[in-house]
């Protein structure tokens, strides 16, 4: 017999989880979806962001989300540096498909092992006023631990959307995604624009990392669970479409939450993979893609 309390709670927490997944994916939507850079190391940078937020939180008691916003410029610089290396070593040589992928895989591995060496494999938690509180609406529980990340994520995506569609640089980034050659004919430098966009995509990892550690305790290998999820959402949302990303993220969040509630949490990672393979086999352009 299906319990409606259970179903309602699973739906609500899936919805909130999906909002959070959108923030985790938005960086990949920019790098993979718009710039065609297969940054599989993105989840590792998110976990790096979690650890940075944790450090500031335990040392000086800073709010993790505030800390991540302060750290975002540093992540931007890191992203710009990574793109520059990637461009000089692979993109210019026309070698991004094999060695470029291996490069990002190496970065993923180095980040994970580096975190293990520095912080060990213990789970880390953050302290904040909203971590332990839960709101009640009838039989539906809304933990602030999930609600705050979801809201932060939606604000982040709305701001990015405004940036990309209203500002000059943002529109130029969208242009580089569509046709780099035409952009070069307009006397704009596609490499510089891609560097800015990739920097922004890594900067979002800082904020996504902070809300990840608000939602769940974090240890270095958590990144791997997110690779399948992130790319499943990105492909399903139709590479680079922000609205598609949010909808796909919420869809996956709800499916995972239902699976975890009715079949057990250890099966949840398989859901993303099912989504990914299903999308690739049936509709590789994504639900909201152009193709």
């Amino acid at each position, binding site marked *: 017999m299906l319990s409606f309390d259970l179903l309602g709670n699973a739906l609500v927490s899936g919805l909130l989880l999906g909002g959070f997944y959108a923030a985790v994916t938005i960086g990949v939507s920019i790098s993979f979806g718009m710039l065609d850079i*297969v940054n599989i190391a993105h989840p590792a940078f998110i976990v790096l962001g979690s650890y940075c937020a944790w450090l500031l939180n335990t040392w000086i008691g800073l709010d993790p989300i505030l800390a991540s916003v302060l750290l975002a410029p540093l992540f931007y610089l890191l992203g710009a540096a990574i793109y520059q290396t990637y461009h000089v070593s692979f993109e210019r040589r026309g070698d991004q498909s094999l060695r470029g992928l291996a490069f990002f895989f190496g970065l993923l591995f180095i980040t994970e092992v580096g975190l293990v060496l520095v912080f060990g494999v213990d789970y880390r938690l953050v302290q904040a006023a909203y971590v332990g509180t839960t709101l009640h609406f009838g039989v539906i529980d809304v933990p602030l631990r999930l609600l705050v990340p979801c809201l932060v994520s939606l604000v982040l995506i709305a701001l990015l959307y405004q940036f990309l569609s209203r500002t000059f640089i943002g529109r130029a980034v969208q242009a580089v995604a569509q046709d780099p050659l035409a952009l070069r004919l307009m006397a704009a430098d596609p490499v510089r624009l891609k560097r800015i966009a990739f920097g922004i995509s890594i900067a979002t990892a800082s904020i996504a990392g902070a809300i990840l550690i608000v939602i769940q305790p974090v240890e270095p290998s958590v990144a791997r669970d997110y690779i*399948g999820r992130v790319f499943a959402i990105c492909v399903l949302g139709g590479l680079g479409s922000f609205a598609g990303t949010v909808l796909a993220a919420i869809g996956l969040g709800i499916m995972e939450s239902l699976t975890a509630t009715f079949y057990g949490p250890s099966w949840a990672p398989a859901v993303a993979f099912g989504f990914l393979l299903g999308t*690739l086999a049936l509709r590789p352009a994504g639900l909201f893609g152009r193709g």
Partner: protein
Amino acid sequence: MSNTRFLGCAVLVAALAYGAAVAVHNSYVFFAGYVVLQYIVLATAWNVLGGYTGYVNFGVAGFFALGAYCSVALVKLLPGLPIPAMMLAGAFVSGVVGLGMGWLTLRLRGAYFSIATLAMAVVLQTLMVNWEYVGGSGGAYTMRPQRAPFFGLDYIQYLFLLMLALAVSAVCIARTIERSRLGRGLAAIRDDELAAEASGVPSLRLKLAATALSGALMGMAGAPLPFYVTYLDPTSAFSLSYAVNSIAMPLIGGTASWAGPVIGAVLLGTLQQVATVTISSALNLLIVGVLLVVFVVAAPNGIIGLSGRRATAPRLRRFLAPGRP
């Protein structure tokens, strides 16, 4: 050199390696040598798809662990089955999984295949964690017999010999492919898939063959693992270090021919066996990751490319296709 003569040379080298290991008179050599040989198989298998065809498989740990878990299940199901039979079973299961993955994703751009293999490893791990029959998340113990089934050899020597035979076959298979019609088709796909397709190369069929073969070799390499470690749990069987090593070794050695993965595996494998004993094992994984990144950035053709003049090929390709970024 003809294929049969090459096989003869490879067997001779293998016999010398075994002789040298026996002469040292210390069974630790067999334990360490087994791991190096296992990496020769994994790196060679990865290179059949990665180096020859240009499709990156991140799911090495998945295929490898699938072979290992196949053995765990078979030991319970049919006790007393000889290991070579288990290796064939592991090869079959991993090959079929490779074929299925390839059939779903190889028609798309290479990046999708890579992402799907990475996610596949995570899902196979989830399956094994939930499958109580093979030990679940707690892991499974496999009894290692004292003596090998023949000659009264030490069991670790038997495992070493099996892996040696597999390494010799893997290298010979890779070299045969390189020089065959299949290998030329794969190289054409790697250099320009669209042009290859237009010239009548049946690209999907060749890619599927390479994926299935590569997966089968990885599964075969994993099959004796439960007997080697005696205790297998999902976290160690699906360890990301298998994937990183199998990718780093061909890229460091050179992906163009069979010799690259062998050189990379021998160098990196031996280095790690020494480093694990002398330094910590986490640090030595970090070294592998750093070496991988340094080599793909600074020496795109690996160690072989450093000595030879193979660097002209990519330049020629760029000249022929100037429109590409």
